[in-house]
């Protein structure tokens, strides 16, 4: 299962190492991880996308993260109403003849060209992972020279639907 997990952590040196080291030690595979500061000075937020084999392992992951002293809160937000975005920079082989064609491809994705050179151009796209991937697939035939992705960052929407059939991982269930 692919899960989106967020962790609120103390903004201290070594905290990223603690968290990734823990995931490594417990054999979890991180697909992407993004970290940044939050509205509170001393607190950072991490968003991981991880591949876990089953619910038991998922529960372990959340609990082990929670045990870290510098980790304040861990949530599996995969099944909640969330906003999730990532950004990708894609350098595509291109010349003046192709530029318009590529412009036409990226427009429906609301991506933009942010750099142009004689033989390439760089596209910036923001969105959910599947959208980013769809665009990358479309651009691949032109020849991708370089690709960089930030990984997903996400949080809950302001309003959560009341009726849910979310599985609960609380040990008090």
């Amino acid at each position, binding site marked *: 299962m692919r899960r989106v997990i967020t962790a609120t952590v103390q903004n201290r040196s*070594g905290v990223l190492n603690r968290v990734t*080291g823990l995931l490594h030690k417990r054999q979890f595979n991180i697909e992407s991880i993004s970290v940044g500061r939050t509205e509170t000075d001393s607190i950072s937020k991490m968003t991981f996308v991880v591949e876990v084999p089953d619910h038991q392992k998922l529960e372990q992951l959340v609990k082990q993260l929670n045990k870290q*002293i510098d980790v304040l809160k861990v949530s599996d937000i995969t099944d909640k109403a969330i906003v999730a975005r990532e950004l990708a920079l894609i350098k595509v082989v291109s010349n003046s003849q192709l530029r318009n064609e590529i412009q036409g491809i990226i427009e429906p994705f609301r991506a933009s060209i942010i750099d142009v050179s004689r033989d390439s151009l760089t596209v910036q796209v923001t969105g959910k992972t599947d959208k980013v991937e769809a665009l990358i697939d479309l651009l691949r035939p032109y020849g991708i020279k370089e690709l960089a992705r930030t990984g997903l960052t996400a949080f809950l929407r302001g309003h959560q639907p009341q009726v849910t059939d979310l599985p609960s991982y609380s040990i008090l269930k």
Partner: protein
Amino acid sequence: MSVEAKSETQTGAKPKTGADLLVQSLIDEGVDTIFGYPGGAVLPIYDALYKARESFDHILARHEQGSVHAAEGYARVSGKPGVVIATSGPGATNLVTGIADAMMDSLPLVVFTGQVARSVIGTDAFQEADVMGITTPITKHNYQVQSLSDIPRIVKEAFHIASTGRKGPVVVDIPKDISATIHDENYDTDFHLPGYQPTTKPNPLQIKKLADALVRSKKPVLLAGAGVLHGEASSQLKAFAVKHSLPVTTTLLGLGSFPGDHELSLGMAGMHGTYAANKALYECDLLINIGARFDDRLTGNLNHFAKYATVAHIDIDPAEIGKNVETKIPIVSDSKAALSELLSVANESPKHYEWMDKLNAYQAECPLWYEDSQEKISPQWLIQKIHEATDGDAIVTTDVGQHQMWAAQYYKFTNADKWVTSGGLGTMGFGFPAAIGAQLAKPDETVVAIVGDGGFQMTLQELSLLQEKGLPVKVIIVNNEALGMVRQWQEKFYDERYSESLLTVQPDFVKLAESYQIRGLRVESPEELEHIIPDIFNYNGPVVVDCRVLKLENVYPMIAPGKGLHEMIGVKP
């Protein structure tokens, strides 16, 4: 609180450096015993300790691994955190085994390591090692002090984290320039750890669920782990078991949490546990686990473990619940709080005579057994003799391996906190230094280090410490001239190809002991042992006994790797 004001009254001198501040913080924590080894990066700390030498008993083991294992032994029997100091680089890396061992067995340690000065951290300076990187996966938490003014707070946090919740080791790495810097301010020691709030009181709903399950159960069994000992809940455990007539089995580390000679005791469960205990875990319909972590050496093949049972698990660490075994009734709590609550809530459950009869029959039919030998000393018989000679009330420490299992099987522990062994990490060389730490914590008790000839040779340099302190530790070397458990597995599973497991060349342990001015003895026959054993334990001083036992004896019964608890071998002669 003003640290300076307090220190003036206690030491008569103003703290001057970061190291003085550290030492003062240790005094404030009530530390009186330090296991340490000096070196370049901790020179300022050792200077401060010298000035405050009236306040501490400093134990100079001869290798940092000895320091940390001694601190573990001290922590296990006293319940107080063991305090360790080592220098940067090799000093710190020599601690790694002990720190990992303490992590696995939830022992409270506060370990201070020197670090090179901040200006050269990251430059591969002399005796620099990335202690934070190395110890992060094997500590409950670790700190590198970045500012002198943080020292008092960090020390307080370290002791708090090490000794509350699920206990464990905390490392504090202190750059040399910080411990050497002069300070002249007062410091705030208040701390707040929003990410560390252990749950210690049980959820009443879950307690009720367990009480109800208990009434319905026809075949209940209690499994007591080290959590009962860490939570000081032995008397509550006994009261609970007696109230509901529940058979009790323990894990290796839980030995002593329930009296081994009690009629409800089934003995230890697991790979070398008793037949009755393992069958009880296999056949039960309700398994109440209190403070055990369902280690693979206990459960055997998980597909067969407690497969007919509703599992209830009381643990202070929520991450242990559901980790290996699916749990229907999870109770996150301190063991004492949960058992007290259960005692007050649960009505007496119906007696389960049939179940008890069955378990009693298992015990009667398949007790622990060994073939007695007339000419040679059976290791099991040796343990029984030690048990007799010490009235079953000594503090026993061991390494890992055959001697450990025989000690666990045949030294019937009846009291809590008498058993010090390396369970989770399974560390050779643990038992002897741990015995020194235990003896320091309990100077009036008999402490026996039961060690193997292999393990003893890993840390025997601590004989120096025994000599220096004159501690009356009794070291019994269960000498089979082999790495016994390795040899046993090679015999059983590798067609007797004894690859590097035979230690036929050995030092003369008697002369070795004598070179440290310690009494050394060798016993080779049962008569000799019978004759000498009272003398060993009446002697008021350290003794090293090289006890030559049957070389090819195996530990039975046994669950072969990958097998379930019901598939024991060597159950009967």
